[in-house]
């Protein structure tokens, strides 16, 4: 027992020794599009706060503004600056791969955060850190199944077409629903482009088209609340179960009022801290799995009190 503890202690000492020998680490991050939505804005401030709290870390914070060419330029810049690690929130899961390969060749470990890159690029990255969107879709399907007691007909409002998160959530939802709840029929899916007003319009058309809708699954709460608005306008909100993902403050409040069944709690603070920690683990020489998912639990009215109201 003593031996084991001693061994563990010496490993800890060794690893701290190496950290202090090499540190402080300079970590560069290039983000997707800060400021365009609340999640990314909160992510950035949480990332900066986490880095601030760790005296062993120095950060270079860049933002691609949603532009893939600019992001590639930023990765090249970070390679030139010889940072110790690069964290990327990909603007496009395919187009950034050549730049990631360059960083890999230059011996700089790359951590991809939040949104995955294409299969072909996985061999060049040290790790991915982010939410498991397929699992999130599956969890939403489970909630839908519970809420409807395994019977009913529903519609889906998905995120931006072509965006990985949107596709993974829809895929996870549809697959789990079919397997768990064959009695629940998915009537139709239309994209709401992460936009509340657009989702509201789609839902209005669904309400015209279908006389009976028992449930709505929206790719995020912003769109889910848009669908709720539409149903309220048509006087049919009471007969419909609303389930979303990425719990927003408006979704949280709607759950509290009993108008919205449930969502998936995904904190940008957890997301940012997990990304930084993954990069530090890689730099510390630890064995880091390729895929690192942080917890994104279900949230419903019964357990609402266990969660803080989202800041976005």
């Amino acid at each position, binding site marked *: 027992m003593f031996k084991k503890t001693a061994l563990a202690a010496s490993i800890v000492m060794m690893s701290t020794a190496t950290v202090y020998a090499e540190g402080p680490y300079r970590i560069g991050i290039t983000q997707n599009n*800060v*400021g*365009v*939505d*609340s999640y*990314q*804005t909160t992510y950035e401030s949480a990332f900066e706060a986490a880095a601030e709290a760790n005296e062993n870390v120095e950060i270079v914070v860049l933002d691609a503004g949603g532009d893939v060419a600019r992001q590639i330029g930023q990765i090249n810049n970070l390679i030139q600056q010889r940072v110790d690690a690069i964290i990327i929130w990909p603007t496009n899961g395919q187009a950034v791969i050549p730049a990631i390969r360059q960083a890999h060749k230059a011996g700089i470990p790359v951590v991809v955060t939040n949104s995955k890159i294409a299969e072909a690029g996985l061999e060049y990255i040290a790790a991915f850190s982010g939410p498991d969107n397929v699992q999130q879709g599956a969890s939403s399907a489970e909630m839908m199944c519970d809420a409807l007691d395994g019977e009913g007909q529903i519609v889906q409002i998905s995120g931006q*077409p072509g965006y990985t998160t949107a596709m993974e959530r829809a895929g996870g939802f549809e697959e789990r629903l079919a397997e768990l709840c064959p009695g629940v029929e998915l009537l*139709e899916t*239309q*994209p709401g482009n992460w*936009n*509340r*007003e657009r989702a*509201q*319009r*789609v839902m*209005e*058309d669904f309400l*015209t*088209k279908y006389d009976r809708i028992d449930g709505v699954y929206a790719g995020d709460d*912003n769109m889910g*609340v*848009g669908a709720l*608005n539409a149903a309220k*306008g048509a006087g049919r909100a009471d007969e419909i179960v609303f389930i979303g993902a990425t719990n*927003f*403050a*408006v979704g949280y409040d709607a759950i509290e009022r009993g108008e919205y069944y449930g969502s998936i709690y995904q904190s940008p603070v957890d997301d940012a801290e997990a990304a930084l920690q993954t990069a530090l683990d890689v730099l510390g020489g630890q064995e880091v799995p390729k895929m690192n998912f942080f917890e994104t639990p279900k949230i419903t009215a019964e357990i609402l009190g266990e969660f803080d109201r989202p800041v*976005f």
Partner: protein
Amino acid sequence: MSFLSAQGILVFFLLGMVVFSFFSEQFLSQSNIMTVVRQASIIGIIAVGVTVVIIGGNLDLSVGSLLSFSTVLVVDLHDKIGPVNAILLMFALTLLIGAVNGFLIGFMRLNSLIVTLAMLSAIQGLVLIYSGGQNVDIANQQGTWFAFFGRGYVAGIAVPILLFGLLAIVVQVVMSYTGYGRRIFAVGGNPMAAVYSGIRKNWCVFSTYLISAFCVACAALVLGSRVMGSQNNVGQGYELLVLAGIILGGTSLLGGAGSIWKTVIGVLILGFIQNGLLLMGYPYYIQWIVTWVIIILAVWLDLANKRKRLLTTHS
């Protein structure tokens, strides 16, 4: 027959309605028609203003960002300074940005495409600075009369539709029956001749951007009230939808011709196409393709018709 070909776009509209109604029984139901017109009214309200700008011989591509700006502003300020002040301040600042557009294009004589394209980005930047990237929401959604503009009804007709109709009628009357309207047509049709005949072109162009901004502010009122919240980029892409409606209606992008009435029809066609395709269950990519194919078709038909008319008058 000549009447029919002159009203080509209207015939096209009615024909489309009949075709869609074969495929979907709900399409011509009263509630669906109301839904579509209400959905189209935000684009429609903006299109009324932009039509005036286009008749005056210029373009306005900044309306999408301006809509984001005005909506975020009015929603954010609603809880902070109360609905009345929020609405007044929003109108004032929106008109101020319209005045900047108008000054640069009317008085500095800069190219309207470049100026409003630049303003499209600049205003979006302004929105992000203002909101810090956060969504804005109205906290007490049940208890505010602000809901009237987007969700209310007067005599059984949705308020957005009434606003759209009222604006369209007023602006149409101004454009057709007042000296001011005729001066805008003159400036857009032949600026040189207009200046030589004593029209103050600078002021005319300047004023069209105020009208456009005023319409955007009205649209923001409807949008903010309908959604009771706003994303930073809520108006993104509206500039193209507005242009599409105007072109579909048959107002010439070259200026000096067109009417609000045509724009109303164009915007409604756009709304009914998108609604009809969705009711028929087509996926979104088909909707995109069909919408733009129809727009290009409409422009071509319009052009072919004009060419034919030119040829017949010459021969």
